C-alpha cells in the first residue's frame, strides 16, 4: 500500500503496537537543553534510573546564554543572572553525571539546539528526533520524524529510548509553481500559517511538498519545518532528495565510508509514495505569496507587505473578532493602517528559525553599505551557533553588519524569547526573524512582527517596514 513519508518513519520506528491504540516508538536522537531538562534528570535520580542509551543524546545550553561577548567571555561563571547561571550549571552537572555529550557554552560547536543538530549531522534523515522544545520540527527538513515534547517525556525518552505515542494524521501542504524573487522560505511558511491558521495543523504531521520545496535549500526547508508548530502541527517534513544528502555529507556525526553508502541507499525511500493518501491536502500557488509581516499576537495574524491592518469587524467569527480587537490593543495599531507605516524600535535577526549562514548572508546583502535608521534604537544579529558565527566572520558578514550599525552577537536564543538579557522594552515594536509574536514573548509589553531576514534587514535601514524588493534588485 502506498504510504506517506510520515507513515514510513512511523512504521520503521514502531517497537510495539498496544491494544489500547497507543504505540511504543523508538527514539534515535534526543537533543537536550537547559530549560526543559533539569526536572527530567531529577526524575531519573529520584527513581534510581539511568539513561537507556547515553550516545543517543546530545546537549547544549542555548536559551539562557548571554549574547554579549563581554558576558560570554566569563563562561558559565560569568552569567550575570544567578537563576540563569544555576540552570546552565545544572545542565553541565547533569551531563557529567549521566555521561551525556554536551557542547558547553565555551565550545565553538555550541548554539541553538535546532541549528547545531543538523550542522553536526547529529540529526539525520530517517531518524526519530525529540527535544523538550516545540521547534524540534525543524529537523523534519532532513526527512526525520522530529517533534517537541514536555519534560516528562524528556525523562521517558532518556529512561526508555521510546515514547508512548498515538499516530498523527497526515497533511500535505503543497506549494506549486515558483516563488517570486525576493520571496523567502519564511514568507512561504508565514503565508501557509495565515492560510491554515494557528490550530490548522493540530493532530497532523505536515509534509511540505511540491516544486517550491524541491527548489528550496535545505536551510530554507528548516525555516519552514521549524514553524510547523506555529500552524499547530508538532511535525513538519520534507522528503529526502539530493539536496538533503549533499547537505548531510561530511558532517561530524554523519556516517562515512561504506556506512554512508548504506545510509544513502536507505534514505532513497524517504518520500511519500505516489498515490499515498493524506487526510488533508492544502494547495497554495507560489505566485500569490508576497513578503509577509505579522501584525498581531498570533502567527496566523499575517499579511503581505502591501497590506493593511485588518479591522475586527472583518472577522465574522466572534472569537476571531475578539482576538483581533485584543491584538490591535496590545500591538498599539489601528485598523486600516498600512503595514509600511509601522515604525520600528528594534530589529532582531536570529533564532532557530532564521540564524543560519544563508539567513545571515541574505540579511547582510540587504544592509551592505547602508546605515540603520536613527529611529531604530537596537538592531541585533545573533548567529545560531559558534560555527555559523565563525563562517560568517570568514565571509566578512560581521563587518558588513557592524558597519551598517547592527550589533554582532554570540550564539544563543537571545531575543526570540528573551530569557537572557536581550529584551524588548514595554511598547517597543520589533521586526523579528523569530517564530512567535505572542504577547510578552520578546519582553514585557514588547510588540513582535515576524518577518524574513531580508525584510528585517530592509526595515532596519528604513526604520519602518518596506518591501525588500523595493530596496534590492532581485
Amino acid at each position: 500500500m502506498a504510504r506517506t513519508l510520515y507513515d514510513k518513519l512511523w512504521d520503521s520506528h514502531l517497537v510495539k503496537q498496544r491494544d489500547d491504540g497507543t504505540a511504543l516508538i523508538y527514539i534515535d536522537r534526543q537533543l537536550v537543553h537547559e530549560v526543559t531538562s533539569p526536572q527530567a534528570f531529577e526524575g531519573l535520580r529520584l527513581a534510581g534510573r539511568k539513561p537507556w542509551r547515553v550516545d543517543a543524546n546530545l546537549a547544549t545550553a542555548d536559551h539562557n546564554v548571554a549574547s554579549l561577548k563581554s558576558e560570554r567571555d566569563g563562561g558559565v561563571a560569568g552569567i550575570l543572572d544567578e537563576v540563569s547561571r544555576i540552570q546552565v550549571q545544572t545542565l553541565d552537572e547533569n551531563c557529567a553525571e549521566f555521561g551525556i555529550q554536551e557542547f558547553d557554552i565555551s565550545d565553538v560547536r555550541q548554539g541553538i539546539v535546532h541549528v547545531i543538530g543538523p550542522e553536526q549531522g547529529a540529526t539525520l534523515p530517517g531518524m526519530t528526533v525529540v527535544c523538550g522544545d516545540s521547534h524540534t520540527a525543524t529537523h523534519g527538513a532532513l526527512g526525520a520524524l522530529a517533534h517537541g515534547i514536555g519534560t516528562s517525556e524528556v525523562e521517558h525518552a532518556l529512561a526508555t529510548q521510546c515514547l508512548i505515542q498515538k499516530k498523527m494524521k497526515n497533511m500535505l501542504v503543497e506549494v506549486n509553481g515558483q516563488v517570486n524573487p525576493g520571496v523567502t522560505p519564511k514568507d512561504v511558511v508565514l503565508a501557509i500559517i495565515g492560510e491554515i491558521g494557528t490550530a490548522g495543523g493540530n493532530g497532523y504531521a505536515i509534509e511540505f511538498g511540491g516544486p517550491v520545496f524541491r527548489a528550496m535549500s535545505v536551510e530554507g526547508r528548516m525555516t519552514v519545518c521549524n514553524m510547523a508548530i506555529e500552524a499547530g502541527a508538532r511535525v513538519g517534513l520534507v522528503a529526502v532528495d539530493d539536496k538533503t544528502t549533499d547537505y548531510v555529507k561530511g558532517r561530524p556525526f554523519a556516517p562515512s565510508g561504506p556506512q554512508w553508502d548504506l545510509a544513502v541507499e536507505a534514505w532513497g525511500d524517504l518520500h511519500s509514495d505516489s498515490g499515498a493518501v493524506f487526510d488533508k491536502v492544502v494547495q497554495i500557488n507560489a505566485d500569490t505569496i508576497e513578503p509577509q509581516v505579522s501584525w498581531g499576537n498570533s502567527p496566523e495574524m499575517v499579511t503581505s507587505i502591501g497590506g493593511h491592518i485588518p479591522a475586527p469587524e472583518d472577522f465574522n467569527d466572534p472569537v476571531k473578532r475578539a482576538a483581533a480587537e485584543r491584538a490591535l490593543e496590545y500591538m498599539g495599531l489601528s485598523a486600516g493602517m498600512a503595514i509600511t507605516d509601522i515604525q520600528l524600535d528594534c530589529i532582531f535577526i536570529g533564532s532557530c528559525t532564521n540564524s543560519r549562514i544563508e539567513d545571515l548572508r541574505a540579511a547582510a546583502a540587504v544592509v551592505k553599505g547602508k546605515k540603520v535608521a536613527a529611529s531604530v534604537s537596537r538592531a541585533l544579529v545573533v548567529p545560531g551557533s559558534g560555527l555559523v558565527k565563525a563562517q560568517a566572520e570568514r565571509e566578512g558578514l560581521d563587518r558588513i553588519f557592524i558597519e551598517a550599525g547592527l550589533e554582532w552577537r554570540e550564539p544563543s536564543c537571545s531575543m526570540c524569547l528573551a530569557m537572557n538579557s536581550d529584551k524588548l522594552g514595554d511598547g517597543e515594536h520589533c521586526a523579528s526573524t523569530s517564530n512567535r509574536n505572542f504577547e510578552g514573548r520578546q519582553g514585557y509589553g514588547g510588540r513582535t512582527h515576524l518577518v524574513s531576514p531580508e525584510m528585517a534587514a530592509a526595515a532596519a535601514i528604513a526604520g519602518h517596514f518596506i518591501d525588500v524588493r523595493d530596496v534590492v534588485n532581485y
Partner: protein
Amino acid sequence: MKRFTPLNGLVAPMDRANVDTDMIIPKQFLKSIKRTGFGPFLFDELRYMDEGFADMDCSNRHRNMDFPLNFERYQGAEVLLARENFGCGSSREHAPWALEDYGFRAILAPSFADIFFNNCFKNALLPIVLDAAIIDQLFAEMEADEGYSLVVDLEAQQVRKPDGSSIDFEVDPFRRHCLLNGLDDIALTLEDAEHIKAFEGRWKSQSPWLFPAAT
C-alpha cells in the same frame, strides 16, 4: 504520577482563543530547576499590573482586577473553562505545572494544542474536549450563576452540571487508565524492555550508522 480523583470544582473562565504557553507561564519563570512553585505566576502578565520575575513574593503585587481569576467569585476554582486551541506554542511543561500548582485539575475547551494536551496527562491535569456550542453554553451558565461548579468524573467520562444533566466526553483509554490509577508510565514502558531491546537489535543491523561504534 498522581491519581485523578473525582472532582466537584468551582469553574473559572479564560475567555480567549489561542491562549499560548507564554501567556500561561512567561519565560522568566522557566529558569527554575524545580517542578513546583509556578502557581503564583500563572497568567502572570494578565494577573498582575507589574512585570514579574522568578522567585518574587507575589503577595504585595498590584493585581489586575479586570482579570477574572482575580475576581472574588472565582477564588478556589479547580475547573478552567477555555476557548479553542488552548495551550498553543511552546512545549514547556511548566504550563501544566503552573495550572496544577494554582489549583486547577481540569480544563474544558473546544480544542487544545497537541503538546500541551499530552503534557497535561503527565500531571494529573485533565484536558477535556467538548463541542464549541457546549462550551458557549457553559460560559453563559457560569456567568449567570455565582458559585457555578461542575463535577468531573473521569471514571464515567462525564461532566455533570448543577442541574443534574451530564455531558459525556472522550478520553484515550490508556491515559484514562494511567490517571485513574496514578501509574508511572516509565515503569509501564520498562515492562516492555525486552521488546525495546529486540527492536534495537533489528534496527542496529538495518541502520548501523545510527549506532556509532563508540557504544
